[in-house]
């Protein structure tokens, strides 16, 4: 088989089967729903796609395992990836492109020129900074320089995966390459970060589709993460939460508690301090296919300072309010009565003092 055949990507060649309009619309509606947009938005997405308004996407790869790209390819029924990619124009992608070498670099250059200021720059993988960033170089340029160049002319920048968001695995101690995430390389830009290892593909898709359709980005938190996906911790929407609250824990893998699906906090689950939506979105579109769902504690892959930093079986930090302080504040009891009580006491003492003064003075007159 020709090399070209093996490496052919669906995006480059239209596939014979095609998809009918109803299925296509359904897909857009689902994608819209996944990111909390309304049905009308979904319809608009489908419309925009049909009209061929496809934003350009330039996808950069640095210190990565390509897991996030792989994750993206595992979305939905056959042909969906192809459909989604029809909603955008993927103009540079090192994994999916057949071209290589000077050819692909030329494609990058042309795409940047043609869509300057409008293209979406997607970053996958961490960027090494030690020793001027020589530990990742493509076409003779360091990752730092590439990102600065491509990012400076982008309409939107999205970091997919923990590595691109904050450094991920390459940044684990001792971080020999000085790996950091894209926000550290381009501090002045608004960067949407979609952490995860891998990132949940629908978090990425929702962001991209919103931008493609409306030209806006979803609401972001202080770390640039879309709030619709990263606004809550795993602990807050974990199906095993009731076990946590009732004190039922698996102590050892395979024990009775583990088999009964008890909470995995005692095994080191980092759910309480990890912001992500794995518990509601799952992976590979199989219900229950996510770490806790299959009985392994969350290790906090999305969260800087937790994932690849804390030991997997080390206890997580529980949120504020879970435990009282050593000396909690006990408010005054029956506070409402205090004003009245003070007044009453004051009145009585005052009256007593006045009365005794009167008696004392009158007493002088009576004195024999």
């Amino acid at each position: 088989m020709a090399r070209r055949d093996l490496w052919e990507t669906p995006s480059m060649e239209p596939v014979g089967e095609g998809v009918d309009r109803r299925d296509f619309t359904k897909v857009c509606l689902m994608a819209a729903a996944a990111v909390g947009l309304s049905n009308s938005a979904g319809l608009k997405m489908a419309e925009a796609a049909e009209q061929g308004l496809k934003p350009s996407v330039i996808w950069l790869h640095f210190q990565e395992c390509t897991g996030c790209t792989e994750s993206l390819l595992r979305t939905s029924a056959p042909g969906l990836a192809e459909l989604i990619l029809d909603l955008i124009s993927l103009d540079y992608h090192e994994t999916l492109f057949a071209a290589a070498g000077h050819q692909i670099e030329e494609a990058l250059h042309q795409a940047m020129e043609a869509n300057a200021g409008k293209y979406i720059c997607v970053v996958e993988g961490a960027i090494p900074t030690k020793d001027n960033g020589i530990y990742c170089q493509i076409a003779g340029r360091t990752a730092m320089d590439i990102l600065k160049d491509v990012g400076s002319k982008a309409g939107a920048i999205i970091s997919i995966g923990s590595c691109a968001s904050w450094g991920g695995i390459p940044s684990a101690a001792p971080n020999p390459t000085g790996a950091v995430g894209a926000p550290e390389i381009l501090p002045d830009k608004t960067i949407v970060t979609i952490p995860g290892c891998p990132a949940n593909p629908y978090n990425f898709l929702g962001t991209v589709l919103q931008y493609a359709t409306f030209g806006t980005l979803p609401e972001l938190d202080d770390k640039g993460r879309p709030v619709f996906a990263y606004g809550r911790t795993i602990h807050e929407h974990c199906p095993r939460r009731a076990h946590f609250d009732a004190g039922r824990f698996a102590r050892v893998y395979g024990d009775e508690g583990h088999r009964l699906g008890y909470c995995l906090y005692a095994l080191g689950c980092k759910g309480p301090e990890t912001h992500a939506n794995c518990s509601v979105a799952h992976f590979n579109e199989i219900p229950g296919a996510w770490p806790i769902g299959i009985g392994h504690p969350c290790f906090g892959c999305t969260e800087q300072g937790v994932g690849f930093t804390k030991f997997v079986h080390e206890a997580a930090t529980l949120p504020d309010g879970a435990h009282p302080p050593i000396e909690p504040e006990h408010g005054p009891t029956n506070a409402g009565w205090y004003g009245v009580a003070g007044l009453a006491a004051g009145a009585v003492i005052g009256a007593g003092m006045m009365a005794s003064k009167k008696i004392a003075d009158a007493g002088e007159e009576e004195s024999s």
Partner: protein
Amino acid sequence: MTMDRRSLLKGVAAAGAGAAVTALPLEASTPKPEIPPDAFGMLYDATLCIGCRACVTACKEANAMPGNLYNPPEDLSGDTKNIIKVWHRDQPDQSYMKAQCMHCLDPACVRACMIGSFQKREFGIVTWDPTKCIGCRYCQVACPFAIPKFQWEKAMPKIVKCELCNHRINDSTGKPMPACCEVCPKEAVIAGDYRDLLAEAQRRIDEHPERYYPAGAPKIYGAEDGGGTQVLYLAGVDFENLGLPDLGTEPAGISAAAIQHTIYKGFVAPVALYGILGAVMWRNRRSGKEEE
């Protein structure tokens, strides 16, 4: 008022006697309190605790007390006998703290209770007897750990505190099974014979002196504090941070008891005073004349 010498002398003598009595040397400090032969206790190792609070829910269930972790308790109370608190949340030297009755070897509450409702009973467990208690709350004033709690919101209130689950006796060992120890997934709190626990705590600090407080020469809180307690603590941070006060080795309330005992030893002083008073008044009457 003119006071003749005799009356003045009488007055001074009385005051002097009073002062002398209270200035008497107090009883020599007591020897270490006796450890009951079947003493049962708990060992809580704060360095192992992960703050999961399984023990809090287990305690509530075992004692049929209302409440759960959806509306978690802030402190021990009339329906919470055990609680997990945290010191320095989010800091590297964070430590959890399990608070419940310490089951002192010489408890202040037992010394205080007028009618013996609080006693050390089987296994040395400090228990409360509802048939005797009048609800005076002197035990609350006395306890240096602020453990006994009162059910303020009830018309028929009780005094509530941990009793080491002495109502859950293991059929085979014949010993209590505290629910908190049963459910702890990290065995941060364990129950057992007091002497065994003391030995276990000693073993831990011998093997890992760097892990416990004070690093290098760790201390077992409760081995001697306040005369010794049947619930022992090991921690990685200063015990005072966890709300465990520095009590010295004297049992709480012992100096107050010493004063009482000194004054009323053998009831000699009151009887003597009674005799003196009676004699004085008898003499006054006999003399017939009164002073002006």
